[in-house]
């Protein structure tokens, strides 16, 4: 017989769908089926059952083979590496729960390391812009119940957040939006005709890299000032028409993603997008929200913020927190060669960092804590597989609108495997002995 666990949280993207249903065997050892999840979420749950999973830590030998070691030896290597390093980098934290992040922060503070999460290559520039101009935002339920102007700027939820449109932004029938999709106008700004753009009422096919100019043109259009004929490949009539459509809504929302955070202008693109939202609040009610990628990158930012005061790129080498992306952020630290030990957890810099940064940490002592086989574990000295967070162990995580949801353990991890929190506690206790801290 099998039992169905309802209200399960999907540990993949920032939408954090919490209405999944998972069918497990009676003894809770086997996961059989997943309902209500998108294709990526289903794959994540089912992959936890694959037979060729790595279940024991292993050291990378010079000739390319792997030698299996115990968790204690792995914890010893990690603790020694972090304690000896002059400037270790502890990167990742986005696919693990807030409890493991708190233990990781203690390790970072004792060993005086730099810690950073995947915001460095995802919404880091958003956080810089928020620090310059603030963030008029709301929770996803407000959008579901009230929003009638939805703008997707530089993001492609059809691919990156598959259920976002059906759970929150376009299709749901909220309290004041009972006609669902019919009561909403959708605008998409993207240099490609993405699958999201194909569903939009208005698609502004912008020239790539010119978001800052188009956003500035919108602000000029709100004030009815002079505009040049074409801005970023969009004629000025279409800009004024889009501006009026935004002003005429009762509750508007701008979702923005990698299109603005990763292209030229970076934090200023989001700075201007937030300024557009702030201006629109003079005419009607408008909010803006970043489409966070990982399911707990927001949580990592929150835990860093209430323990150290900064949301990411925190440098603890002086015993207290310092912050300045460009100086303390992972990519710059690696490319400038400022780091002499690399600790990765809950992310995959090997695949998602520029290769010049990956080359740097391929030749220094490095530990990768990840249940999967990834390019990071491929170039790391020690690979420590842990239980799948969100599938085989629970813990708190934060949605893209900073709402905390406690995700749940649905199936037992393979025999003898530790969770990331248990492994980090081993490392912390050993580091405390090495550094003689109380």
């Amino acid at each position, binding site marked *: 017989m099998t039992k169905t666990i309802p209200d399960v949280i999907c540990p993949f993207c920032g939408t954090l769908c919490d209405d999944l249903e998972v069918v497990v065997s009676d003894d809770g050892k086997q996961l059989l089926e997943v309902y209500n999840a998108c294709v990526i979420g289903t*794959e994540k749950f089912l992959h936890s059952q694959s037979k060729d999973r790595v279940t024991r830590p292993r050291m990378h030998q010079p000739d390319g083979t792997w030698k299996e070691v115990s968790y204690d030896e792995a914890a010893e290597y990690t603790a020694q590496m972090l304690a000896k390093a002059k400037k270790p980098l502890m990167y990742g934290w986005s696919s693990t729960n807030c409890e493991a992040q708190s233990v990781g922060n203690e390790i970072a503070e004792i060993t005086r390391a730099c810690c950073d999460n995947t915001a460095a290559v995802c919404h880091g520039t958003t956080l*810089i812009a928020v620090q310059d101009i603030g963030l008029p935002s709301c929770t996803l339920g407000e959008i579901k119940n009230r929003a009638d102007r939805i703008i997707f700027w530089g993001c492609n939820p059809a691919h990156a957040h598959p259920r976002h449109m059906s759970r929150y932004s376009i299709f749901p029938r909220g309290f004041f939006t009972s006609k669902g999709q019919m009561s909403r106008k959708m605008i998409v700004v993207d240099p*490609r005709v993405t699958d999201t753009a194909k569903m939009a009422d208005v698609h502004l096919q912008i020239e*790539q890299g010119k978001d800052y100019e188009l956003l500035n043109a919108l602000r000029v259009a709100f004030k009815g000032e002079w505009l040049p004929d074409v801005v970023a490949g969009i004629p000025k009539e279409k800009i004024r028409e889009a501006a009026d459509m935004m002003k005429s809504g009762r509750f508007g929302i701008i979702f923005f993603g990698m299109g603005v955070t990763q292209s030229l202008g970076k934090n200023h693109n989001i700075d201007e997008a937030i300024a557009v939202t702030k201006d629109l609040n003079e005419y009607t009610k408008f909010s803006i929200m970043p489409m966070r990628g990982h399911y707990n990158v927001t949580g990592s930012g929150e835990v860093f913020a209430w323990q150290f005061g900064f949301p990411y790129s925190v440098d603890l080498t002086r015993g207290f927190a310092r912050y300045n992306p460009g100086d303390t952020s992972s990519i710059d630290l690696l490319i400038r060669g400022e780091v002499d030990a690399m600790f990765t957890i809950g992310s995959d810099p090997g695949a998602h960092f520029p290769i010049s940064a*990956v080359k740097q940490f391929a030749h220094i002592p490095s530990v990768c804590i990840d249940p999967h086989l990834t390019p990071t574990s491929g170039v790391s000295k020690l690979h420590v597989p842990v239980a799948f967070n969100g599938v085989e162990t629970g813990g708190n995580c934060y949605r893209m609108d900073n709402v905390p949801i406690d995700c749940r353990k649905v199936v037992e991890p393979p025999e003898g495997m530790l969770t990331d929190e248990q492994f980090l506690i081993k490392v912390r206790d050993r580091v405390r002995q090495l550094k003689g801290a109380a």
Partner: protein
Amino acid sequence: MATINVNLISGRSIQQGVAIEGGKEKPAYRTAAGIIELDPSDLKKLGTWKNTNVRVTSDHGSVIVKAIETTQGPHPGLGFIPMGPWANSIINPNTYSTGMPTFKGVPVRVEVAINEPVLLGIELVQKQCGVK
């Protein structure tokens, strides 16, 4: 053989999402992210059939990927490689001191390279880092 210059962007795709959760050591990851989506007009300028291997070179590196016809176009003059080791072998690491590399908006040159294989994800990174 003809070469074309396009502006490269990278980003998520649902196939890439499924592949990273399915295991990056598997060929499915290469099928999902070891590709460059080009507009049919650009493919015509390149003078090649779709689904052929091409070498994409930028000021920061070069990589072999399979050129396919765009699924989300038209976007003439714009190439799209899903985020992953293939894209990150050639994107511009300059962060302009904001901590964020320039993943989108990298001028690249594309030329046909029929006989060169597209490497697997982990293999590609290990080879470039000189780690066995």
